[in-house]
């Protein structure tokens, strides 16, 4: 089970079909850095990155 990241919002998933965060269909296995957002309302990091939903995200994708 390879985890891939959505190329537009960087959400990490093992199902490379449609991104449940942004609806994107372009995924990559080349992603770096790791971020778990638990509470996007209170997280300064989520605010800074414009993340609105909890989940796992990459910091960079290529």
């Amino acid at each position, binding site marked *: 089970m390879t985890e891939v990241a959505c190329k537009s919002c960087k959400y990490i998933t093992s199902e490379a079909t449609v991104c449940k965060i942004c609806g994107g269909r372009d995924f990559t296995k*080349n992603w*770096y*850095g*790791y*971020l*778990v*957002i*638990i*509470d996007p309302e*209170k*997280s*300064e*990091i*989520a605010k*800074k*990155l414009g993340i609105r939903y909890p989940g*796992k995200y990459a*910091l*960079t994708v*290529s």
Partner: protein
Amino acid sequence: MSRFFVVKTTANQERLVANMMSMVAKKNKANVYSILAPKELKGYVIVEAESTEDLVKSIRGVPHVKGLVRGEVSFNEIEHFLTPRKAAEQIKEGYTVEIISGPFKGELAVVKRVDEARNEITVELIEAVVSIPITVKADHVRVVDKKEEVE
């Protein structure tokens, strides 16, 4: 108000620790807002939490946690991890690189072209009899010599 703490982990287990901590934090109702594992930071994760008590609740029983780094870090100190520079921006034509993944893993090559937008570089293998340019992701090489080639 968020505060930022650093947790020491076993090297290469940073993601596992981040996942486990997020589950433990929910179970123990700890006010932990995010957990960050930048690739540059081996053996550490950064935890965004309300207080030290919340941090402690979120590491309870989590394997591969080796301890807490004393004190806090400021948002300014971690901000640069959030917008990492692309690998291609740090590579120039003429640099010697080692390919670290894919079929040419372990080969040395000279950089012929850098495409920052695609984060790709075109290289020629040093050992190859006939030099055929190959294009690889900039993240798949490691710079070994920054001396730019003299034509």
